């Protein structure tokens, strides 16, 4: 498996594959929240460099997929698998997944009072770039880090003062979402999941966030954009659009599928998949994990 090329890049993570790029593979994923099944067999494969969109009506399970991928302990994977380059990660805690290159931009970013953005990100960046780092061990150099975070803030049109504020504390909705994008920019994940990053924002803020994401994504990043709307996708044109209904992906198409949904809503989709609505009597497959 290991590349014979003598370049040192990618050696730290150890699992970065060669020319074809990394793959995030979700197979027959079943997820329950408080013993209620939400996801009922999700399959998806995302390669580095690809942009996927996940659409679907409220309550179809989109955010559940996002949280389950990130490793939220309240989202129990009852069967199926999540793999990055063949490594099963569904038993990993959230921090281990992040160190493997997974990133979730939260729909509702959490406020952490008293913790400065710069301190938070310096710890995060140190851990992501040095996955073997233990608590208390050296952080990335201050000078180097400061320059980097300033450059990224400039690129995203953010006031440098942000770095000194407490994380999301007193931030407006737009500022919080921009902060998620700043974190994405600093952590440079292999796979980024954006959970309704456009929700609750006015059109200017959506444009800023969309442009920011478009600048960041590239051949090194696989992106899964969860959205109700089309606007985020205008700047970040997806190769694949998935439609979720009742905890399953019922259709996958190209960018034109997003247009269709935008124009006509979910009525047609529902009609094509009458069996996809969640059934309360449906029992979960026996827990396999």
């Amino acid at each position: 498996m290991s590349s014979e090329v003598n370049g040192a890049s990618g050696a730290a993570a150890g699992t970065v594959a060669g020319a074809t790029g990394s793959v995030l593979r979700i197979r027959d994923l079943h997820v329950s929240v408080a013993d209620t099944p939400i996801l009922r067999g999700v399959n998806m494969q995302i390669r580095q460099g690809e942009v996927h969109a996940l659409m679907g009506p409220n309550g179809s399970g989109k955010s559940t997929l996002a949280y389950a991928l990130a490793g939220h302990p309240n989202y129990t994977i009852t069967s199926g698998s999540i793999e990055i380059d063949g490594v099963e990660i569904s038993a990993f805690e959230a921090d281990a997944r992040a160190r493997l290159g997974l990133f979730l931009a939260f729909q509702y970013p959490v406020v952490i009072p008293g913790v400065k953005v710069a301190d938070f990100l310096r710890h995060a960046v140190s851990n992501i770039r040095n996955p073997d780092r233990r608590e208390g061990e050296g952080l990335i150099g201050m000078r180097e880090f400061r320059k980097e975070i300033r450059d990224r803030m400039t690129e995203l049109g953010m006031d440098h003062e942000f770095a000194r504020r407490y994380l999301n504390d007193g931030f407006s909705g737009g500022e919080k979402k921009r902060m998620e994008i700043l974190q994405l920019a600093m952590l440079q994940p292999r796979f980024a999941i954006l959970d309704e990053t456009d929700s609750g924002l006015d059109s200017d803020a959506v444009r800023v966030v969309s442009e920011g994401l478009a600048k960041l994504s590239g051949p090194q990043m696989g992106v899964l954009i969860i959205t109700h709307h089309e606007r985020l996708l205008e700047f970040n044109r997806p190769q694949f659009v998935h439609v979720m209904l009742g905890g399953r992906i019922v259709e996958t198409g190209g960018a034109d599928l997003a247009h269709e949904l935008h124009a006509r809503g979910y009525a047609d989709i529902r009609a094509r998949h009458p069996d996809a609505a969640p059934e309360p009597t449906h029992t979960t497959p026996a827990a396999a994990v």
Partner: protein
Amino acid sequence: MLYQAGWEADMTLAVADLSRAGYSADIFAAFLATRREPQWITEARQRAFASYQQLLQQELDPEEFRRLDLRTFNASRFRPAAAVPDAGEISTLLSGRTEFGGAIAHVDGHVTTSRIAPEISAQGVLFGGLQELLEQHRELLEPYFMTRAVPADADRFAAWHAAFWTSGTLLYVPRGVEVQLPLHSLIAHSHDGVADFSHTLIILEDGARATLLEETASANAELSGLHVGCVELIVGRNACLRYVQLQNWNQKTWHLAHQAGNVESNATLQWTVVGLGSRTAHIHQDINLDGRGSMAEVNGVTFTSDRQKISYYTQQHHRQQGTRSDLLYREVLRDDSRVIWRGMIKVDAAAQQTDGYQRSDALMLSEDARCDSIPGLEIEADDVRCTHGATTGRVDRDQILYCMSRGISRREAMHMIVEGFFQQIYDRIPIEVVRETLSRAVQAKLGIEAVAADLLQNDDEDES
């Protein structure tokens, strides 16, 4: 039979309230015999001991002590140390951290070292052992000593202290003098079973400015000890005092402290109380805004673990017009520890246009920790603004997940969240060395391992 009866009497006492037994007249007589001091001091002690004996017969104020069980507190297990101990160096949180303009150390109730920079003493500043300076400057200092901030008969513990006080720190700053460098005071224990009655008296004349950083420490984790302390802060008109007391005894020490600050017109008191150590602590803290336009900012940083109990009784007493008080306490509790905070803002009828604020926020790191926070207001004036509040909460799991989703480990996330919780208090402390010292002490005490285990238990994936 006689022996039997005596034994039974002791048992009854133990069940009833050991703390009511107190120190006997014999102990007081033996103590006085070791003192070589002027008659006026001895007489003051005798008056205080008489009050003490009376006060022992009375119930402690239930408002202040109801939630703190002192019945197992056995004073007879601790005695004042007769001789100056050969203490050696006691390392403390602030040791060697910054440059001090003067420093004094008390070990087992005796002054062991004391120094003051010549240029500071040349300004007329008095800094050193209380006993010695009180004798030398009686006419200057006697009027302040246990008369105004903490009267000798304020309560059982104050009277006990007034009868048995030894050593202590005195800081006197003359009118208009500014002491630039902070001063350091250490109260330490180095022998098992010691009772120390150290006193801190700070007097700032009008327009004076000074900073005193005081800490308590035990020479090791095994000594049992008792501190019955008293702090009096007198801040003259337009003066500014910064006072920090960093309580860091080992967990076998009782800490009973009566503390008060009196602030004159347009003066400022910035007072930070830190509680990290002790087995059981009770701190009575009075902030008396005596002069028009006076101002007090009070910070409390408390971090308890194991079976520690720390209790605070704070009173912000607005006695004059246009006074301001701003009290913020934050507590982090681990393991089986317990914190009690009973706060009160009192506004006299004369104290119009006052602005009083008090708040206590507690963060619990374990299911077994317990915190009682009870704010209160007593307002007799009609044109005032008083705000109070208290919160008690647990570490938010969403915060932990959010940190972890950025590659930060659970332990490191806990660490950050606790630090962040205290950060909002550190932001109010203008002395950098104190902020740094607190931050380091909190990190050390976090002893992350145990905390992380606690949290793991709360999560579902713990299967081992």
